[in-house]
């Protein structure tokens, strides 16, 4: 395989990763856009959801790699898994908002963010203490289908990831731009007080943002498990760092920004891992984060200014 083809393969991989990071970053940016709150718990909601997805698939009798399905059975199983995971993630997100964030709604400063750190810690350690520190094998209902394009391989699961991600992203765009609740969300993101005065139920809008954002994290979590064939208590941190950087790179609070940022970070991770050693990927991603915040704080598409005047 020529160098060029190896690179191309990494680009393909990177696009799949990017789709997953984009979904995770979208959920994060939705909440930030409305509350200007950095929700650390988001990434451990992602981690918990991947376990929920695993348990949902195991419930259907699918475990390990042996049982590959096709046709309607496959669609049905995947549909069930996605619905269950996204619903569970959404409910978890709303519960977190209701219990730990709503009481802090008017409080100045970083109190709410510190609370999300606490919630994140709680989720992380509950899973660590109950499920344990090892990686869990993820059930794999997908048949091993691949297509060749020259020497570059495109797996069925990558096509699946892109299909799901596109459907969700288009769905989100339609929701935000074409529905009444979506308009209410955009209004609240621009000026919550004015929105409230125009009759928008801001509490409901915030709850919706948390539900949708967490549901997207749930989808990303199931994708993670299906793509990497494992899950573990630590994936919130590893994937979360990348998704977070993607959101910042794209411009925190911006929906198209999160999508573009996710793809860029996915490409950087897979191509960068190829060109420089994989163990430096974390440093590279963190450095990008720091550099973006220092030099281009608004990111690529952002409107929120992270600096004080």
């Amino acid at each position: 395989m020529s160098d060029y083809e190896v690179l191309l393969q990494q680009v393909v991989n990177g696009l799949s990763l990017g789709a997953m990071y984009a979904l995770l970053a979208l959920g994060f940016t939705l909440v930030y856009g409305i509350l200007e709150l950095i929700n650390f718990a988001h990434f451990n909601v992602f981690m918990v959801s991947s376990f929920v997805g695993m348990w949902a698939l195991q419930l259907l009798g699918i475990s390990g790699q042996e049982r590959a399905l096709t046709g309607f059975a496959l669609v049905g199983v995947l549909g069930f898994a996605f619905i269950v995971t996204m619903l569970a993630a959404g409910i978890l997100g709303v519960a977190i908002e209701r219990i730990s964030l709503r009481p802090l709604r008017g409080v100045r400063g970083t109190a709410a963010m510190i609370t999300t750190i606490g919630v994140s810690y709680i989720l992380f350690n509950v899973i660590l203490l109950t499920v344990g520190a090892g990686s869990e094998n993820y059930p794999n209902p997908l048949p091993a289908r691949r297509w060749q394009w020259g020497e570059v391989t495109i797996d069925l699961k990558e096509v699946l990831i892109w299909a799901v991600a596109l459907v969700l992203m288009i769905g989100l765009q339609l929701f935000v731009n074409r529905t009444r609740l979506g308009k209410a969300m955009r209004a609240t993101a621009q000026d919550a007080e004015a929105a409230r005065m125009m009759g928008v139920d801001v509490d409901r809008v915030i709850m919706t943002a948390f539900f949708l954002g967490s549901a997207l994290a749930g989808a990303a979590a199931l994708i993670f498990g299906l793509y990497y064939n494992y899950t573990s208590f630590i994936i919130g941190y590893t994937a979360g760092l990348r998704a977070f950087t993607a959101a910042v790179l794209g411009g925190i609070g911006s929906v198209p920004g999160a999508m573009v940022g996710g793809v860029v970070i996915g490409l950087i991770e897979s191509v960068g891992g190829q060109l420089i050693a994989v163990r430096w990927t974390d440093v590279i991603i963190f450095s990008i984060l720091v550099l973006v915040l220092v030099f281009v704080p608004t990111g690529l598409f952002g409107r929120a200014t992270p600096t004080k005047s």
Partner: protein
Amino acid sequence: MAEPRAGMTSDTFTRLRRAAPLAWAAPALRSRALIAAAAVAALLFPIAIRNDADIDSLANALAFAALALGLNIVVGFAGLLDLGYAAFFAIGAYSYGILSSWQLQPDWSSFWEPFQWLGLVARNHTTAGDFVHFQVSFWLMLPLSAAITASFGILFGAPTLRLKGDYLAIVTLGFGEIVPIVVRNWPSLTNGAMGLNGVAAPQLFGFNFGIAATPYYYVAVALVALLILISVRLKDSRVGRAWMAIREDEIAAAAMGVDRVRFKLLAFAMGAAFAGMTGTLYIAKLQTATPDMFMFPVSVMILVMVVFGGIGSVWGVVVGALILQVLQSWVLEDLSGWLHVLGRFVGVDWLQRVELASSIELIFGLILVFMMLFRREGLIPATRRVPALSLTEQSAQVGRGGFDRLAGVGAGAERDGEKLLEIEDLTVRFGGLVALRSVSLSVPAHRIVAVIGPNGSGKSTLFNVMTGLVPADGGMVRFAGMEILRLPPHRILECGIARTFQNIRLFPNLSVLENVMIGMHARLRTGTVGAVLRLPVTRREEAEARERALEILAVFGNRLLPRLDHPTASLSYANRRRTEIARALASGPKLLLLDEPAAGMNPAETLELVDQIKSLARIGLSIVLIEHKLDVVADLADNVIVLDHGEKIAEGTTDAVRRDEEVIRAYLGRSAVYA
């Protein structure tokens, strides 16, 4: 015009000063006794408890108390959320570790001879040649690693401290992650994941500390005591006030003369220095260092200690750190033991195997959420409760007549009527909106100029541009002959322009007195060294500053003096306005910009304020006044300027302006002109 009441200020001031000492003696004595008891207990602990493991645990606990003190300066005093504090801990630790172990062994050359003479390195003869062995003394390393870590603090802080709170938190999180990863992936310098070994134990007058915990324990006690002293001294000084001002309201802090960049960097560097010293001690005790000891969970743990103990409270974070460490090393282990016994007794397998110590992080998470939801001020809150006011203290008499003397405020060198402030062609745009369009005006010395106009006409924007809070898109502003348009807000304050804000920007959690003393920030000279050492010149400066603050507050009769220690968030709207004016006066300005000072006052209070403003002009201040109450304007203003939609549409005496057709149209609409 009413007669000014001579000597009004000194009467009230003396009355209050006589009452003060009695009120504050008892709590001071009580806290001194507690501190003495704690010191004695700390010193006697290893003698009472001879168990080396327990002494070691407490030494670790004290190390984390020192770290909590450092983070308290960054998060608690200055309000900068640092989520990567463990990076500084690591830098301090590895600085000592590398310079006192066998990790680095460069070839010997004559370059190293002076260092050998100083005792910092030794010449190591081996069969492969002569090498350098670093053996920098622990005691020298303590201040040295403080300096090294502080430099890293400045290095990290310089590009990032202008970011907003949550973004700063993320960047510091990034640094907190990058440092251990770099350490792990640089084995030639740090021996990577396997960790430094052979770190030298400290030596004191020939006595080698070895591995027994007791000598390290006493060093830890001394370190914590030192850091507490530094924290307490800084908190109650010009530096601490500047930090708290930045924490409460950055914009107001800048407008009151605080150089935000410098003080944020100072807080960051000081917090880093604390962590650096603690890192050195910690590694000396452990005699090894691995990157795993400095990861994100450590940063979170220190944050939990600060939040739990009380953000901003020096004793609070020490107590919080000690409690959580003791919880982790003693209580949870004992509790696990009891649960095992219980499990055996009732035959539940899970109980027999549970290890509560490993669930400490879950407990940390729960503590964070619980504290933020239910007790944000922490175990030992930073702000004292203030006693309720008596009825006489609460009732305020409206005083007429103003005053004729005010310390620190007075005539400058300008001749009467000479142009103090000149604005030419000033233009300000916010995106497509032109807030000010080629506005020109001048303010003569010792005069009162009023700026009036409908809402949205650009009056507050004018003030914001003059004080450097908003950039201008064209024009010139000259104050006492000097161009001030591009200067940062704190420099403009230093030149002699002070302001109040339309929406009142006080420091809500700070007391009235502290607010006013922050106004004096630019006129005081005490720096970090002076604050920590409490030199006589520093003590004198603080006492004089306090007296001047009380005199200024006495201008407002007994409205503010009984409320000296009350947080300004608890004051009435009018009293908050008065405090803001007092704070601006405290900076000894030549030009005072008052943005709607009479808002929220009833007619009697308004008349009182008018007399006070007249007195200020009489003693030499120049004043620019934004007001909507046109009777106030008529009474005070020598000159009135009218703005509408960002343009100056009229200028002149109150009467002339009142009759101007453009002005009537702007305020009341076109048809009113012909009414």
